[in-house]
């Protein structure tokens, strides 16, 4: 194996180990005390058949509440980071992500509309996917009409699309029942994992796995688009197919994330840049590293929320931490971006 391949796998190993440690430690946080060894025993009890030396309540809290919530935060953090990384690479633009392009707002609108009509979970997810796809296509078309090669135009188009769907969300809110539906829509839109349960996990996992598999299959072609569309074409890549794959896969992941946990911003924007400083820009490497880094990032944020015993929405905290990080990245790399 070549030297630089080995270095990549060492870094991935370290990231994965960090994720596992943070993941296990996350179970300790909460109103019921538990040690890490207890956590490991509870988690493995269904596989190894250890005789439970803990109470049924502990079992329920660990496996019924904390397990889905913590696992979902890994999945959602990873999914948002990967969709941000793939949008950035394929649009050749370091300043976009699902939330900037309006995907999150579009998915939020779709989901809110479905919630208003009392739809079932998978209908909400479908509505979120449709809303997200419409939003990203709208942003892309507006950006393409205004100016193909300009980085800021696409960002601007995303901001416009995002505002448009935020307005639609507001309409849904004013129509919603103020006692039952409105509070849940409002709170959920700001980003929360409180309602995440094992059923969500079962629905989200296959969608994320499928999207990651699609992106993995097209990893080398996605890379080529970072050089520009014409150059990609001259190297034999069908640009529209690759863009379509990225839009479907990233929007599917974002829509799942939004329908489970509401709008959690800034992860898709900031985490890919952190991942690039670790494993480099090549998408085949970025795919893994940004997933792991995104998982760690959202786990830590969720831990902060839970250990402060507050109901602070996740989206608020990711924005509070994400925005200064973005400014820092912007200062460090401004020469290359502008």
């Amino acid at each position, binding site marked *: 194996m070549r030297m630089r391949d080995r270095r990549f796998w060492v870094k991935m190993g370290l990231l994965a180990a960090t994720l596992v440690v943070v993941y296990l430690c996350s179970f300790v946080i909460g109103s019921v005390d538990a040690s890490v060894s207890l956590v490991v025993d509870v988690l493995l009890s269904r596989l190894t058949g250890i005789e439970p030396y803990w109470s049924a309540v502990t079992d329920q809290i660990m496996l019924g509440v904390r397990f889905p919530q913590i696992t979902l935060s890994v999945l959602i953090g990873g999914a948002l980071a990967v969709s941000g990384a793939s949008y*950035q690479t394929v649009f050749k633009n370091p300043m976009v992500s699902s939330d900037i392009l309006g995907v999150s707002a579009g998915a939020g609108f779709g989901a809110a509309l479905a919630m208003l009509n009392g739809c079932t979970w998978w209908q909400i997810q479908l509505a979120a996917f449709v809303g997200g796809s419409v939003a990203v296509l709208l942003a892309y078309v507006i950006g393409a009409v205004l100016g193909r090669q300009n980085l800021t135009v696409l960002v601007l188009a995303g901001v416009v699309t995002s505002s448009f769907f935020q307005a639609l969300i507001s309409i849904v809110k004013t129509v919603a029942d103020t006692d039952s539906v409105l509070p849940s829509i409002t709170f959920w839109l700001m980003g929360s994992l409180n309602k995440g349960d094992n059923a969500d996990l079962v629905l989200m996992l296959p969608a994320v796995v499928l999207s990651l598999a699609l992106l993995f299959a097209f990893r*080398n072609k996605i890379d080529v688009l970072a*050089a520009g569309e014409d*150059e990609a074409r*001259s*190297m*034999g890549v069908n640009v529209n197919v690759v863009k379509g794959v990225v839009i479907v896969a990233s929007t599917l992941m974002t829509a799942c994330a939004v329908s489970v946990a509401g709008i959690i911003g800034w992860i898709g924007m900031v985490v890919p840049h952190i991942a690039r400083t670790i494993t480099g820009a090549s998408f085949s490497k970025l795919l893994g590293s940004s997933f792991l880094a995104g998982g760690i990032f959202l786990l830590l944020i969720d831990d902060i929320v839970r250990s402060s015993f507050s109901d602070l929405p996740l989206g608020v905290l990711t924005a509070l931490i994400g925005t200064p990080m973005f400014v820092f990245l912007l200062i460090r790399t401004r020469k290359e*971006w502008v």
Partner: protein
Amino acid sequence: MLDVSNLRFSYRRGREVLKGVSFSIDRGEILCLLGSNGTGKTTLLRCLLGFEKPDGGRILVDGEDVTRMRLERRARYLAYVPQSTSIAFPYTAREVVLMGRVAHLATGASHTARDMQVVDEAMERLQIAHLAECRYQEMSGGERQMVLVARALAQDARLLVMDEPTANLDYHNQVKILTALKYLAGQGLGILMTSHYPDHAFLACTKAALMKGGALVDVGPPDDIVTSESLTNLYDTPVHVGGTFVGGLVVKTCIPLLDETVYARVQADAEGSQELDASFERA
């Protein structure tokens, strides 16, 4: 090798940008496409590379019509070297060159040891192996251009299509690029380049093509067709082509003249010197 015949193209109906362009390039030949801005040079390249679909005419490479090929197959015949573009992310030079292998890769497949070997060889041939792990973003214009040439080489195509390879480069890097092109042509590649420096046609090219108003005015060896008259006509600007003895060789250079009267005087001098030559011979 490359055989373009009667190529026609228009962006809008009734306004033809390419009005029946025909030329050919053989293995080992470098053709320099000269012409003023907006005359259709870039459009011609775009048609060759499949970015635009021509309205008529044929583009054959080794007897095969590339306009009917899928992009993936076409990429094995024609490789494109753009002007040194920026890439927004911190790719290393090796990763950029590796992009050129994508046409040889099935969807989902990983790069093989053979791909890596081709990439290393391409960089070695252009003497940029030492830059392999450097970030493309942080390179100078000349280094970037060499990396893009290496990427085109890694693509393993038969013909390189280069859009102003020497634009924005200093003398040192211009010479480096032109030397690399001569070397690659010597190894059997065909090269088509556009340029705003007619000097480069003399320095490195085996053929020149003069393009004006969407048609080729003349195609042939630079010494024969790149003259004061043809360039003055091509650019609608007085240009003087002169020769200098360097190391026993005549190196031709082109000098644009700012003043019409100077041009007239130069022309008169040229005629005068011919008369002088004639009178010497008589004597």
